[in-house]
């Protein structure tokens, strides 16, 4: 069919034209983070159309997506697949709001599952801040610019039907198209895709907490001592305050020693943009922008490149960025004495997060570092067995806390290097005992309810299940 335009007058009409039926799967990306309005708008239309039993496959469900629970209650949605779930949604899911189990994947595992046919998407709804009438689109231009659209790229490639949802139409051809017209079926213009100011949700500033800073400084020293910090170095850090502080301290070391890194990757913040501009990194490989500075940079700096979730982390790709990473800095809700990490559930077993790129980067990077305080309020970080395995311990190399650094016993050479550099290396068992001497040993809450979610590894294997909690 040859068409001059793919513009459809309304979202409802686009849904009709997509032939979406009961029981099918629709997909979304979360680049607008807490500012996203597209998921709710689409689900409202689906509900009005009387569609039932849809599965929502979203790269992440944020707090602003809690209205999905209303659509679960009215029967519009009966399945959820995602890589991260905010506690505001997770609490209800943990109480059994959904009959079917939620499927948790990682950012790399999600596109891999599409390739392997384990995850089929019928209709992808892709929020774009700029699009033309043929569906060429990106997140870099327009009033609601949010930067990289990397997590939606696999959806565009693999979904049966692709609807681009925008609030700002540009003349054809939109030259800097992140998603190209060749994969787009329809374009819908709505009043607003969301509030780009709210992509800055979560902690995207360097922590001021002195303990967080202490941990970050030790982590930066550990990277320096590891032997990996040299010209051509590659690095990734999350958006947590302590993780960002590691980047700041690392920048200081690189500046002092005249080291230039090849790339920093993953979710990008203004801090990493500053390091790029200063010449401490040659390039940024951006799958998601965490703040306004990153959005402005990706729109205007050729050294700041956009990558798809597939290129970022998919184990089914012929190669991916995470496999070239030297060092990744990650957080943890809990870690056990076998170095397994939980970022899915809290100490009561309630869903409050997800892997995101945690398990992907941990598997790929040469050195995977967990930075976390040894206690949070009265809860020790280290436990005998984590409530949920998000990332297997074999992929974690080092834990950095304010009371010392614990190396995975598999990495004895790393331990020797850190000790030679005068860093306080201790066993993870000693750290656990130290925390328990202060907090005592909390009793583990064990839930024996039916499974409400399963955590699938990036390779498609079952890692763990999450049980329903009883009030």
């Amino acid at each position, binding site marked *: 069919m040859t068409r001059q335009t793919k513009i459809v007058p309304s979202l409802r009409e686009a849904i009709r034209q997509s032939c979406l039926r009961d029981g099918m799967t629709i997909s979304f990306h979360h680049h607008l983070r807490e500012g996203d309005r597209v998921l709710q708008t689409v689900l409202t239309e689906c509900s009005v159309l009387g569609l039932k039993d849809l599965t929502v496959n979203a790269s992440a469900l944020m707090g602003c997506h809690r209205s999905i629970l209303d659509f679960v209650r009215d029967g519009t949605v009966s399945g959820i697949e995602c890589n991260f779930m905010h506690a505001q949604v997770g609490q209800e899911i943990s109480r059994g709001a959904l009959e079917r189990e939620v499927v948790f994947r990682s950012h790399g595992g999600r596109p891999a599952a599409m390739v392997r046919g384990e995850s089929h998407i019928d209709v992808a709804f892709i929020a774009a801040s700029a699009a033309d009438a043929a569906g060429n689109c990106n997140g870099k231009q327009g009033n609601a610019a949010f930067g990289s659209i990397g997590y939606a790229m696999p959806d565009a490639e693999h979904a049966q039907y692709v609807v681009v949802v925008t609030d700002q139409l540009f003349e054809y051809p939109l030259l800097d198209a992140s998603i190209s017209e060749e994969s787009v079926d329809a374009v819908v213009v709505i009043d607003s895709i969301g509030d780009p100011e709210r992509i800055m949700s979560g902690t995207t500033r360097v922590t*001021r907490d*002195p*303990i967080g*800073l*202490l941990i970050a400084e030790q982590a930066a020293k550990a990277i320096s001592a590891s032997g990996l910090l040299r010209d051509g170095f590659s690095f990734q850090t999350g958006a947590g305050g302590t993780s960002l502080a590691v980047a700041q301290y690392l920048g200081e070391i690189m500046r002092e020693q005249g080291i230039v890194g090849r790339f920093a990757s993953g979710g990008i913040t203004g801090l990493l943009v500053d390091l790029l501009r200063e010449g401490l990194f040659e390039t940024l490989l951006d799958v998601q922008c965490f703040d306004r500075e990153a959005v402005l940079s990706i729109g205007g700096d050729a050294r700041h490149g956009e990558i798809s979730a597939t290129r970022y982390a998919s184990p089914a790709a012929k190669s991916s960025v995470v496999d070239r990473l030297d060092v990744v800095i990650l957080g943890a809700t809990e870690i056990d004495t076998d170095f397994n990490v939980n970022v899915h559930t809290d100490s009561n077993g309630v869903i409050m997060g997800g892997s995101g790129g945690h398990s992907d980067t941990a598997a790929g990077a040469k050195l995977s570092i967990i930075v976390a305080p040894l206690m949070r309020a009265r809860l020790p970080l280290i436990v005998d067995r984590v409530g949920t395995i998000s990332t297997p311990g074999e992929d974690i190399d080092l834990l950095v806390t*304010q*009371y010392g650094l614990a190396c995975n016993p598999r990495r004895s050479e790393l331990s020797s290097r850190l000790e030679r550099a*005068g860093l306080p290396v201790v066993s993870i068992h000693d750290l656990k005992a130290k925390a328990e001497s*202060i907090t005592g040993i909390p009793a583990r809450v064990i839930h024996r309810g039916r499974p409400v979610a399963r955590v699938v590894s990036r390779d498609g294997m079952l890692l763990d299940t999450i049980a329903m909690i009883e009030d």
Partner: protein
Amino acid sequence: MKRSYLFLPGNQPTMLQNGAVLPADVLIFDLEDSVAPAEKDAARELVSSALRSIDYGRRGLAVRINDIEKPYIKKDLEAVVTAGARSVMVPKVNSARTLHHVAVMLDLIEEEYGIEKGRTKVIALIETALGIEMVFEAATSTPRVEALALGGEDLCADLGCPRTKEGTELFYSRSRLLLAARAAGVDAVDTPFTDARDEEGCYADTVYARGLGFDGKLSISPHHLRPIHRAFTPTEEAVAFALEVVDAMERAKREGRGAVSLRGKMIDLPVLRQAERTLELARASGMFTAEMEGAPE
């Protein structure tokens, strides 16, 4: 080496716990200004319990007690001395009499609880015009005094001058306190820098104080520990020179001479003392590893 003295509010358990990992040379648990009157008893219990149960490693431990004019003083001293505090900071020291009074109470407490007499030292906080005028008498009022510290905020209020970041208004007071400390043979500790977010400002302020001769600096924020230590870190050139001086003076000693020539300049005992101080700061700053010094730490 006592370069940094960090105040921790005595009524905040998390901060008391964090003190065990923060890189301060001395921790000062505060029972005075940061604790409201209604919380004085709880803070005293908390600090006493922290001193007894938390391992603070090699950090010096001091407690700022309440003003001796207040009714808490005896309870404060008894609680913290018996819990193991080796130093008490006495605020608003205006005269030798203030410290004499504290020393007498410490004598009684140490005797009553079988603690070695004189174990508990005193840091005198000078923060009034009268305190500055009487500073040498205070420093020599009891052998328990180990340091004089300057409280610039209260002092400026007393002087009726604005407290500036540059601190020019404190020049005379700093110098007067430093002279008294040196004459009495005790340490001189500079006033805290009060903008917690301005680390570079704290660094510059500490460089200035170090230039005047101060041994350390009070700190109201953990964020200031790094800049304070950086300011007290000698340059590599200074360390190299200090090592040469020590070496040259050892040679002179072997040869039975009091002075020796180094790089065309005469080196004698005052230069040696400066060099030894530089090496002490270098060690505290982690510039030497045990291997470099040829001896285990």
